[in-house]
């Protein structure tokens, strides 16, 4: 095979998944000057940006502005976007191998982890990730039904997703109306009867995964009082000494804010948001109709592992709290792609620094790579995917220079595009997306909102005449 990565024979790369990692990968591939690279990005939804569009909470618009960076990346003439094209549906892995020298999977973590406790599947017990997708107008979830007619909601988990869900449930209609939340969600949340939201974390305040700005934000809600129980805010001796010995100022700050909520009492505000620590759900209890009615919680204590981290274990002390709705938010989880080695235990593609690894030979699968959450699991924030993508791209370029790529039968950009158009005539190009974006923004402007999203694929395709 002749050298790839030249003007005559560019290195052709397929990026599967249009979230932040897909864009950072593209950026690193296109802005280096060792090889000439062409990138085609495939996305199963018509719209790019993954969890920035469908995960980041609608009241966090500043973070969403990171898409301006992605827009700039997409302007590179060696980049093309094929939205509404799904791997395993309209195109297969074999098809990609026929048209590209390298394939990189940046599909993220699309499903949720389960609690593994009795009652988990009762009606009214739902993954927080589905609720998030619903209020963000994800086309797969627009018909999702969430019953907000109850007074008590329990959110299980203390990560950023749990915080988002609790906050969205506690925002006033006025606070939500200035966001790009889906119209139907705004309507449903305006009619919500929810009065008390409880977030439960199995470890203590010093181990909570949420960040300082997020906990601070809970204390600043217009019509909801944030409350922490005094005995749960108090640090146990192990956490105290861990904080005292380290130079972990951000955790110290976080704990300080949590403790400042202890003094707060229910006021004239209409809702309460209670943060509970050192409790684990052990059972969801249903009513006679099979709907969740309460959560049984066990009190936890902390112990130190050999390696020094503080884990929780249940004690005999148990309590029951009312809950007409339970959101399970103990983490996202990747789902396998057909034909791509997957490590089930951790929900990631089996890889070594981004090179996909064959489980039998333990060697790299030539031409296949991964980055982002499907590579390392759901951790960090949007920007964390940048160094992660760079690590993989470094190996992609080194492998390409060493001649270790796939050997596509047809590595031509035009025939690849023709092939995609034949398999999915209604694919969305980046220009199509920019038109949709413009329409959403102007619909938003008319209502004094940042944007009003299209929430169904058909609606999007119709809007751009496809």
């Amino acid at each position, binding site marked *: 095979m002749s050298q790839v990565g030249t003007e005559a024979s560019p290195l052709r790369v397929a990026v599967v998944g249009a979230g932040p990692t897909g864009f950072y990968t593209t950026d690193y591939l296109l802005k280096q000057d060792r090889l000439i690279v062409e990138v085609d990005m495939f996305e199963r939804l018509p719209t790019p940006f993954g969890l920035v569009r469908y995960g980041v909470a609608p009241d966090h618009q*500043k*973070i969403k502005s990171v898409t301006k960076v992605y827009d700039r990346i997409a302007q590179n003439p060696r980049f093309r976007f094929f939205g509404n094209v799904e791997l395993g549906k309209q195109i297969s892995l074999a098809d990609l191998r026929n048209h590209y020298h390298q394939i990189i999977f940046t599909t993220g973590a699309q499903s949720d982890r389960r609690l593994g406790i009795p009652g988990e599947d009762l009606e009214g017990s739902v993954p927080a990730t589905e609720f998030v997708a619903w209020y963000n107008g994800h086309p797969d979830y627009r018909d999702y039904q969430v019953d907000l007619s109850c007074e008590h909601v329990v959110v299980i988990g203390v990560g950023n997703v749990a915080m988002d869900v609790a906050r969205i449930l506690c925002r006033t209609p006025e606070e939500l109306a200035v966001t790009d939340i889906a119209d139907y969600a705004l309507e449903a949340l305006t009619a919500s009867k929810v009065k008390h939201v409880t977030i439960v974390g199995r470890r203590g305040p010093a181990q909570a995964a949420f960040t300082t700005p997020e906990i601070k934000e809970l204390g600043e809600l217009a019509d909801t009082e944030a409350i922490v129980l005094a005995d749960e805010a108090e640090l146990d001796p192990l956490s105290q000494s861990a904080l005292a*010995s380290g130079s972990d100022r951000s955790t110290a700050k976080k704990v300080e804010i949590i403790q400042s909520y202890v003094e707060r009492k229910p006021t004239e505000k209409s809702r309460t948001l209670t943060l509970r620590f050192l409790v684990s759900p052990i059972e969801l209890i249903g009513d006679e109709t099979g709907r969740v009615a309460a959560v049984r919680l066990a009190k936890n204590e902390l112990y130190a592992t050999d390696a*020094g981290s503080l884990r929780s274990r249940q004690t005999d002390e148990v309590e029951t709290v009312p809950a007409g709705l339970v959101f399970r938010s103990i983490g996202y989880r990747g789902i396998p792609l057909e034909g791509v080695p997957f490590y089930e235990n951790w929900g990631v593609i089996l890889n070594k620094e981004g090179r996909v690894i064959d489980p039998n030979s333990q060697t790299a699968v030539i031409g296949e790579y991964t980055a982002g959450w499907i590579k390392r699991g759901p*951790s960090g924030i949007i*920007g*964390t995917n940048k160094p*992660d993508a760079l690590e993989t791209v470094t190996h992609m370029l080194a492998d390409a220079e060493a001649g270790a790529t796939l050997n596509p039968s047809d590595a031509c950009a035009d025939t690849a595009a023709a092939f995609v158009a034949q398999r999915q005539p209604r694919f969305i190009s980046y220009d199509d997306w920019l038109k949709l974006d413009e329409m959403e923004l102007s619909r938003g402007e008319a209502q004094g909102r940042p944007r009003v999203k299209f929430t169904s694929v058909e609606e999007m395709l119709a809007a751009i005449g496809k």
Partner: protein
Amino acid sequence: MNVRQILAKKGINVITIRPDRQIREAVTLMSRHHIGALVVVNSDGNPVGIISERDIVRRAAEDEALFGLEVQDIMTSDLVIGVPQDDISSVAQTMTKKRFRHLPIVENGDLVGIISIGDILKAERDQYLGEIDTLETKIQAESSQPE
């Protein structure tokens, strides 16, 4: 951030050695795989010790014939073992305090990986880089659309 996120991109193939192998073999394995320590496992695959560059250097200073010794003669058998759920910041503190640089990780009884202090530094650096980038994005958003 926990240990699992570091392990997830290291593959699941852990380079191990048996206690009765020679130091010569341990050195060859470390060199070939560019690693600084080997987990020593018994015939059931259970970790019984760890042998690191430091163990070898320390012994080499006093015994030039060390290559013919067995791994079990110089390995550290007082082994700290981690789990994938261990917090990275806690592991970093423990490594500094107890002065060791490699932590074997066991999940459901199986050895699934080894974390070095270098892995931890890299993970923490990437986390900070990510935070800086996200903060910059927020600041740019604030300056471009004053509220």
